[in-house]
């Protein structure tokens, strides 16, 4: 998993190696490794925050299967702050 911008700061690192079969699982493994990520990635109802873009390799998971998007060994999950403003 590669973390960019604010998410790198929240986790205190830019790269995490996790074992997971879906994006959702990968996020949970990352939160276990970096608990400070929990409230930064999800709201209190467990939904992903609005200004967070997650990519599985080069595809936005919104265009795939969301958190259920399947992963294979070697896939890269990107956590990227959404661009806001002009």
């Amino acid at each position: 998993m590669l973390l960019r911008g604010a998410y790198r700061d929240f986790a205190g690192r830019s790269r995490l190696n996790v074992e997971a079969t879906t994006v959702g699982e990968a996020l949970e493994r990352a939160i276990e490794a970096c608990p400070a990520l929990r409230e930064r990635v999800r709201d209190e109802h467990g939904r992903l925050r609005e200004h967070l873009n997650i990519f599985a390799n080069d595809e936005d998971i919104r265009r795939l299967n969301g958190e259920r998007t399947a992963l294979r060994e070697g896939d890269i999950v990107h956590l990227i702050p959404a661009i806001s403003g002009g």
Partner: protein
Amino acid sequence: MKRGVAIMVGTKKGAYVLRSSKTRTRWVQEGPLFAGEPVFHMSFDHRDGESMFAACNNTWGGPKVQVSRDQGKTWTVASNPAYPEGHRNTFRRTWHIEPGHAKTPNVVWAGVAPAGLFKSTDRGMTWEPVLSLIDHPTSDQWSPGGAGETALHSIAVDAGDPKRIAIAISAGGAYLSEDGGKSWRPWNEGTRAEFQPNPEPEVGQCVHHMVSHPEKGGEFFQRNHHRVYFRNAEQKHWEDRQEGLPTNFGFAGTIDPHDPDTAYVIPLDERLRLAPTPGIAVWRTNDRGKTWKRTDRGLPKGAQLEVMREGIATDRLDPVGIYFGTVSGDVWGSADGGKSYERVAAYLPPILSVSTATIE
């Protein structure tokens, strides 16, 4: 920190702390803290003389409450306020953090959007929703204020009674609890909502800012959308004290820490949301709003500046220090009880809030 005053400035891009000795003649600026994050409000806990709280509402990663136990030198991220599982609301941001009564030293209150009150019993580290207010039978009558969301932005603890707490919501009006937050009732008698078909509804008023007197029990003051009001908790209704002000609109207002009959407001033009001609001024009353006086010595002549709802505060020294911050990024201060002002910080990001710590 040595004895003196700290002005905590929340801006659209982080927070700044201005520190001075009791003379308040020279200010040292620290910051930005929480760089890049909109800081809606900061507060100091005069009960322990150490704690500071900051309501940080970052777009990325969501809102955070930050807590300091060393007068702002170091900060820790607290748990977020959170609505219960299955609740209609999802926590979006914190608007106001208020230390509780002196007799409940571990209690801190937070007002959030969507409109809700949260209580901490561990000095701000964890939060529980006050569902008796959040799910009040009248809550379906709360509507988004000018900020585009319902927000609980004012928490006024009665200095004389730890169980008496008033809150205000935009646009939901004021509510009062007399049992420490277990139950609430609308507290808007005598206030108007001129934007509604019924201008005197039970709830739904657009309160802009409400405070209690920090020392004298039972005294409350509110800057409402169209008027200003005083109320003693024993009174049956709010006293309309708008007459004498240059406009009927404004956001910022506060009460004098030594005299509950003295208050300060910054009137704005309603349409422009800017100070009206002849420019920015603090208007002061010394007789509970019967008369108002313009004070502007030292302020820029003709400047049509904007000050937001948390934009004015006093310290607790004598003579009282009065401070306000503008959307154009300047902090103005008076160390002589409002006789004259000078600029104590310049060219900050747009200022959302000004609050103070008087460190004895």
